[in-house]
């Protein structure tokens, strides 16, 4: 009986390991696409843009497979404690990574719409910088997951300040070039959207970092918010407009 239990656990951990590897592969596809997307956007490379847009279907397929795998583990093995956190984290990370992949595809769709438009050198420089920073942030978030490194996972949030700052400079540069008449309104809007997509991918990397912290320690930044709200409730300090549920809705980026 005990041997059978050991065998089941072994099989469970093997499956959990497989889920981890599938997740890393999914993230690898997004990281690769993200790096190539920035270069394709700057080069006006339609072939790469098309590859990335079509590659999104493969991302969705793998996402569904990983989710199915996780649900099977939950229902058949009923994991507990840290094992349960691993499976739940895998489900959450899959969604974050898949959404990041969608945003990369969106950048490529914008690149197609802007085909033939010559970008101002300053805007080009900022796109390159923003793309590289988000790419680095996303890679480090996945490194934190693979290495179960809660310190690195926590640092992703701080890194995101750089992305936000770059995003602000980037939007200012678009305004300036539009005012100078070097870029048409339609392209300026597309460029602004591209910046927003990069910024959102940065936010997803932050979410991955937070979920990794949860996986390792069982703690989420939202837990601090819940604690604060509990103290307010105890003091009778009610907000005039209460959000749904007992705590504030996510303090992190959404």
């Amino acid at each position, binding site marked *: 009986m005990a041997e059978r239990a050991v065998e089941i656990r072994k099989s469970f951990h093997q499956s959990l390991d497989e889920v981890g*590897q599938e997740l890393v592969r999914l993230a*690898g596809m997004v*990281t690769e696409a993200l790096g190539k997307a920035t270069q394709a956007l700057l080069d006006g490379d339609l072939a790469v843009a098309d590859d990335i847009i079509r590659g999104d279907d493969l991302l969705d397929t793998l996402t569904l497979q990983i989710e199915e795998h996780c649900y099977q583990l939950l229902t058949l093995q009923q994991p507990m404690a840290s094992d349960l956190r691993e499976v739940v984290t895998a489900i959450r990370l899959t969604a974050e990574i898949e959404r990041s992949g969608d945003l990369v595809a969106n950048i490529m769709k914008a690149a197609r719409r802007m085909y033939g438009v010559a970008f101002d050198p*300053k805007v080009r420089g900022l796109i*390159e910088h923003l793309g590289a920073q988000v790419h680095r942030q996303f890679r480090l978030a996945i490194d934190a997951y693979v290495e179960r490194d809660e310190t690195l996972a926590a640092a992703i949030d701080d890194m995101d300040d750089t992305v936000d700052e770059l995003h602000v400079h980037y939007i200012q540069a678009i305004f300036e070039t539009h005012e100078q008449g070097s870029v048409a309104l339609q392209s300026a809007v597309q460029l602004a959207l591209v910046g927003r997509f990069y910024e959102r991918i940065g936010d997803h990397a932050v979410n991955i970092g937070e979920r990794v912290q949860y996986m390792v320690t069982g703690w989420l930044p939202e837990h601090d918010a819940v604690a604060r709200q509990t103290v307010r409730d105890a003091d009778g300090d009610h907000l005039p407009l209460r959000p749904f549920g007992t705590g504030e809705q996510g303090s992190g980026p959404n």
Partner: protein
Amino acid sequence: MSSALVVVSVTTLVVALVSALALSLVSCRTMRLRFGEEASAEAQRREETRATISRLAGALGAIPQGVVICDDGGREVFRNPVAKAYVRGRHGEALVEQAIQDQLVALRAGGVPPRTLDLYGPPRRVLVLSGMALGDGPSPPGALVLVDDVSERRRLEAVRRDFVANITHELKTPIGALGLLADTVAAEDDSSVVRRLTERLTEEAFRVSRIIDDLLDLSRIEADGAPRCETVSIRSVVSEAVERVRPLAQTRGIELDVEELPRWHAVQGDQGQLVSAVANLLENACKYSDAGSSVEVRSRVNDGEVEVEVRDHGIGIPGRDLERVFERFYRVDPARSRETGGTGLGLAIVRHVATSHQGEVHVASREGEGSVFTLRLPTGNRAGDFPLVGATSSPTNGDDPT
């Protein structure tokens, strides 16, 4: 008689039985001996096979390509260390393992052409996955996949291809123009047109002359190997280079902001080559800056090295070109570069001068913000100080030459 017969019969029977037993024992021993010999031969064969496999595995482990082999049932039976590194790869490398598995399946099913994986990285890598089916029976055969990292080969191919294309273009364009202009001048009677065309002829001739001069400079630096070794003041190198570039800066409306080092900071090397290197960096900075902007030159001594930094606020260099700007005739923007009158050899000369002085040149840049080129040269002593008054000989070691 009957009793004697019985005794004989019993004796015969006993002898027969003993003989049979002996025969059996002998046979058994013979069989045991034979079996022992066969077993020993089998063990020897097995040992030899094991040694051969070990040698083959060692040989496959020593090659730079990744090797993965699967058997008839699709079960992986061998993977060399290079291929093992892909098993738990992350980011782009995580895609290599999947590609290997896909290739193995495809090869067992009937063969596929080699597949190229272009990984963004960083670092950027190009991997080619090729392979073959093993065995040719009715059952699905085994397969072998070879993962070859061709990144460096591809990079060198691109450098060579671009070099040939660029040098052809750089030399053919002005020479073709010279021929056409000469033909037109010969057939033209209008003196004003002839004057205008002659001016163009002079410009094109000057352009060819500059390219040839730069090529000669470059080949001289390459051929000389170690440069002339004299104590050279960095301040005098920078001053001479600045004076050489000042007319260009004034023409383009660029301010040269120079922060000078004290005179005693020096390096060992060839003054002419070093001036040429710094002047090329300054010329480059002036050519790619807008009118009204400034080019800054800073020198400092840092832990046994002299650094000369040339900073501009011009158009900058895209990230993907940063590694290639020091190649001969490489152009980030060919149209703009030719407008500015460059030969495409300036930065190649800088790199060669830096290398021949055991130094290095580094560039950091962002499009739209400008570039910073840093030339680092070893001083030969940690403080970077050498007595310069009448000093022309070189120190033989790291100590101050007093």
